[in-house]
């Protein structure tokens, strides 16, 4: 299940929804990304998430489908917020559910790595020094690449 929304989400309620009435799930992993008040040496008061409506949902669904192809997942949830956010606010939620923990852990990490580099979202930071669009980080690109490079994750 994939959602893009401005409103906050409740990670506990989302997890309950995902595994409700299921008896084949032995492990679930939840990841929540939060907004920090500081990025490198800059103070950030507001972070505004922009997306490409339509393509964002499509990209997240494709990434989710790829995870289900690679790992034996029973269910998954991806929620990404858009609009203005304040320090401490939740930005993104990924939940994976599987029979065993290894698939759930790995798939959650994969989903986060891929959604950061393959889904059309952009962050703008606003603070005392003005507004600036966040630059993409090569460490994020490296993290996404490890799932395509030869190795155990591929």
């Amino acid at each position, binding site marked *: 299940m994939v959602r893009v929304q401005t409103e906050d989400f409740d990670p506990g309620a989302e997890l309950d929804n995902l595994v409700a009435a299921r008896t084949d799930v032995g492990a679930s992993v939840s990841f929540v990304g939060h907004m920090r008040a500081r990025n490198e040496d800059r103070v950030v008061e507001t972070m505004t998430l922009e997306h*490409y409506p339509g393509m964002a949902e499509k990209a997240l669904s494709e990434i989710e489908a790829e995870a289900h192809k690679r790992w034996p997942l029973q269910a998954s949830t991806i929620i990404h917020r858009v609009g203005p956010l304040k320090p401490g606010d939740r930005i993104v939620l990924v939940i994976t559910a599987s029979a065993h923990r290894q698939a759930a852990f790995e798939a959650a990490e994969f989903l986060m790595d891929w959604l*950061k580099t393959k889904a059309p*979202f*952009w962050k703008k930071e606003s603070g005392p020094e003005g507004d600036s669009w966040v630059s993409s980080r090569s460490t994020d690109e490296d993290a996404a690449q490890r799932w395509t490079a030869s190795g155990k994750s591929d």
Partner: protein
Amino acid sequence: MKVLYFAWFRDRIGMAEEEIDLTGADKLTVRDFIHDLAGRGDGYATAFEDMNVVHVALDMQEVDHDTIIGGASEIAFYPPFTGG
């Protein structure tokens, strides 16, 4: 064709979208179109000055600069993704 600009492309060009009549799209590459756009004025020239950070989607599918625009009804320009 509907042309969309996201993030700092929108800031630099000064609009989120516009409608542009394309002729010969069956032979026109994304790169050719970027070249045309860059010649439309200062904001456009600044937006397209570094081709390494010009990412493009045709009908919501990311493509490279050598792709022929063809029958696409929507083209979007945006910087590398920074979500998550």
